[in-house]
């Protein structure tokens, strides 16, 4: 699967400086929800191991069980269960966007990454790797109606001299491979896709000529994409490994011991066979495992490297397409499962919006009041606050809270992060709305209240704000609907809300794409339509009041 570079030490240092500025404010406001980060790994620990992985397009590694879509299954799910048994610590799954898993690990949000992550030098520079548990290679897949029958043909380009169009997973080893292939004269162009299955679908529809996929992915999805044909032998083999944070030798040793044991007693093979991804070259793992045991079950990168070298790298033929096809109209049980999963995600979506919006309004009102009536030393920073938050994307702000604040010891869990991020981001917009609303209240209202002896605070609270509130209701309802839809951005901090759930389901249940999409759209509509109706009713009422 893909490869991704991580924040290096220097980048982290730069970030730390920026982080400190905001930390004080944030820590004051949310001290209660902040959990101190303890990175020390206790030796006789029985605390849960948080395993980070991405279910989105996750087959065969982890995905919804076709028999019961609400249950998670997959090669790595089973492997995690075995690890739990071997290590003696509960392994808890944490959903995260695939390319953000290393960030999650470094931020201390998870304890291990096991999700088809290859052993690559740039990852080893920031994380420690376990022994390999799988040997993968890259398989070229073409449309079975298409003319490509070999890598040689791919290299030559189309008959009319134009290049082949390929699709590949963003940032993946396959992408690197295609880049090199192109550089060495291969007549191809390629587009990068975020989802594993996206490129495969495009090849099936004929928009693309071919795609390059990891062998387990290619063989697993062959039943969902019957019109894809593998061409040539798999190329560029490599190893999937488990990554842990640097220096967690005890944990790494335990994981390695577990892998050795699972390999020795045939469990690893049984799991692979269960998902139809056992291949002959998995046998090459045996040599690595032997070496590892010879070295006393390695726990550091350096010795693991020696193990790799000693074992050599091998890969040849992928497994044939496994199991029967599951395409067709989904049965009632599956539909119910979809409804359950999407409905649950919709609930989370609405909860996020309902909790964060009042916070956003409260902060926004305070900011607006401070900017309009505060002292100059208060006005200026509040102006910066608004400009900064409006000028940077919500996704970046969420990323900052979730992945960078842990660097300074502030570790906020995902849901509070989402609520905090949405509330702070939208507070900037709400403050501007309220600023306009407050300014729309005539000066005479202030003078009348002050002349009665009311204080400025009383005047603001009792006379001006209630009048401003009426003015801002329509734009506020609009913002609420916008925030409601922006909850989808929260998937960046591992929250599986409605859009993310749809994305996950649709990529592992390609045949049901239309049903899933319709269902998801209906759920969004069912939630946002009442709000639109409410907004219109309020607007009508206010209009009626304006013309007595």
């Amino acid at each position, binding site marked *: 699967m893909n490869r991704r570079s991580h924040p290096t030490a220097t980048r982290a240092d730069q970030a730390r400086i920026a982080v400190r500025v905001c930390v004080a404010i944030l820590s004051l406001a949310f001290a209660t929800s902040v959990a101190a980060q303890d990175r020390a790994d206790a030796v006789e620990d029985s605390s849960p191991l948080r395993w980070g992985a991405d279910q989105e397009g996750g087959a065969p590694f982890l995905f919804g069980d076709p028999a019961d879509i609400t249950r998670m299954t997959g090669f790595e799910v089973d492997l995690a269960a075995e690890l739990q048994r071997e290590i003696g610590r509960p392994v808890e799954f944490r959903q995260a966007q695939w390319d953000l898993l290393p960030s999650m690990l470094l931020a201390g949000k998870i304890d291990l990454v096991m999700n088809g992550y290859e052993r690559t030098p740039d990852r080893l520079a920031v994380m420690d790797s376990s022994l390999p548990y799988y040997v993968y290679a890259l398989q070229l897949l073409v449309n079975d109606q298409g003319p490509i029958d070999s890598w040689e043909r791919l290299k030559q380009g189309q008959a009319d001299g134009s290049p082949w169009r390929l699709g590949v997973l963003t940032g993946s080893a396959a992408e690197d491979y295609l880049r090199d292939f192109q550089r060495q004269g291969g007549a191809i162009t390629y587009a990068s896709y975020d989802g594993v299955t996206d490129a495969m679908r495009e090849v099936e529809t004929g928009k693309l000529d071919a795609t390059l996929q990891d062998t387990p992915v290619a063989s697993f999805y062959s039943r969902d994409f019957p019109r894809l044909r593998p061409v040539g032998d798999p190329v560029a083999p490599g190893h999937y490994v488990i990554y842990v944070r640097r220096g967690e030798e005890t944990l790494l040793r335990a994981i390695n011991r577990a892998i050795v044991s699972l390999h020795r007693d045939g469990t690893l093979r049984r799991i692979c066979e269960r998902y139809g991804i056992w291949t002959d070259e998995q046998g090459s793992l045996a040599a690595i495992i032997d070496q590892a045991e010879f070295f006393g079950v390695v726990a550091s990168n350096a010795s693991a490297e020696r193990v790799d070298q000693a074992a050599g790298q091998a890969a040849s033929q992928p497994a044939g397409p496994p199991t029967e096809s599951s395409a067709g109209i989904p049965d009632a049980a599956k539909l119910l499962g979809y409804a359950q999963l999407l409905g649950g995600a919709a609930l989370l979506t609405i909860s996020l919006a309902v909790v964060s919006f009042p916070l956003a309004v409260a902060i926004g009102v305070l900011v607006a009041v401070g900017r309009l009536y505060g002292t100059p030393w208060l006005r200026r920073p509040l102006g910066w606050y608004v400009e900064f938050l409006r000028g940077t994307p919500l996704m970046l702000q969420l990323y900052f809270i979730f992945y960078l604040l842990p660097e300074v010891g502030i570790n906020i869990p995902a849901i509070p992060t989402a609520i905090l991020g949405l509330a702070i981001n939208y507070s900037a917009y709400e403050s501007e709305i309220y600023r306009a609303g407050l300014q729309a209240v005539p000066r005479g209202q202030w003078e*009348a209240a002050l002349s*009665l002896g*009311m204080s400025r605070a009383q005047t603001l609270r009792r006379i001006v704000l209630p009048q401003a509130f009426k003015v801002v209701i329509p734009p506020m309802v609009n913002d609420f609907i916008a925030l409601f839809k922006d909850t989808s951005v929260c998937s960046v901090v591992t929250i599986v809300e409605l859009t993310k759930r749809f994305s996950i389901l649709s990529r592992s249940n390609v045949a049901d794409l239309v049903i899933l999409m319709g269902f998801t759209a209906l759920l969004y509509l069912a939630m946002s339509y009442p709000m639109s109706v409410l907004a219109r009713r309020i607007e009508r009422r206010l209009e009626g009041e304006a013309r007595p």
Partner: protein
Amino acid sequence: MICVRDLHKSHGGQEVLRGIDLDVREGEVAAIIGPSGGGKSTFLRCLNGLEPFHRGQVTIGDAVLGPGIDERRDRRLLQQVRRQVGFVFQQFNLFPHLSVLENCIEAPMRVDGRSEGEATELAMSLLKRVGLDGFAKASPKNLSGGQQQRVAIARALCMRPACILLDEPTSALDPVMADEVLRVIADLADGKQTMIVVTHAMGLARRVHGRVHLFAEGRSIEQGSPEELFGNPQHPITRNFLEALHKESKS
């Protein structure tokens, strides 16, 4: 009761008030008349601190306002002044989101700390006095201009002010509505309520028991009893102004 000495104010480099002296005794009504732009309204707004001034002194009861008053810094002093001095605006400035009664009880409850029952009782008696006790539950938006101004007067009275400042209270009203309001003001004057009224309504100025002041060019150029000022004006500006008014009322 009210004692103003040498009041100066400039605005945007222009002198709006150029040294005004004025005294109002308890139970007396002072009417301020004069051409537009003469500084009448500005003067009135200086008295309860809605506008700062640059020189001089305003003494109201036991409170003394000096130059450069600041809404935030001098809030205690200003509140002390404003609790003694009611203000009635040309544009009424009722609180549109509150009912008539709520307009009247807001300040007594929040500022004087009266109970709701107490404040309501007082407000109802004063609404009755301005003839609007039947409109207690109404929204200000549904009242005529004259009714709104009468509510505004009742609202000011609810704070039991020693003095009420009225800034052109009938200028935004047609003659019929203006008359309703003038009757209320005359009634208050009869009840020995101390007032300063900036007005164009000469009828009102004639009926007051105190003095009439003519403001022009930021000065109080002439003052006297209504009989003196209207019957035998001394200053040429006064004569011109009264003549113009007279012509206007005839045409």
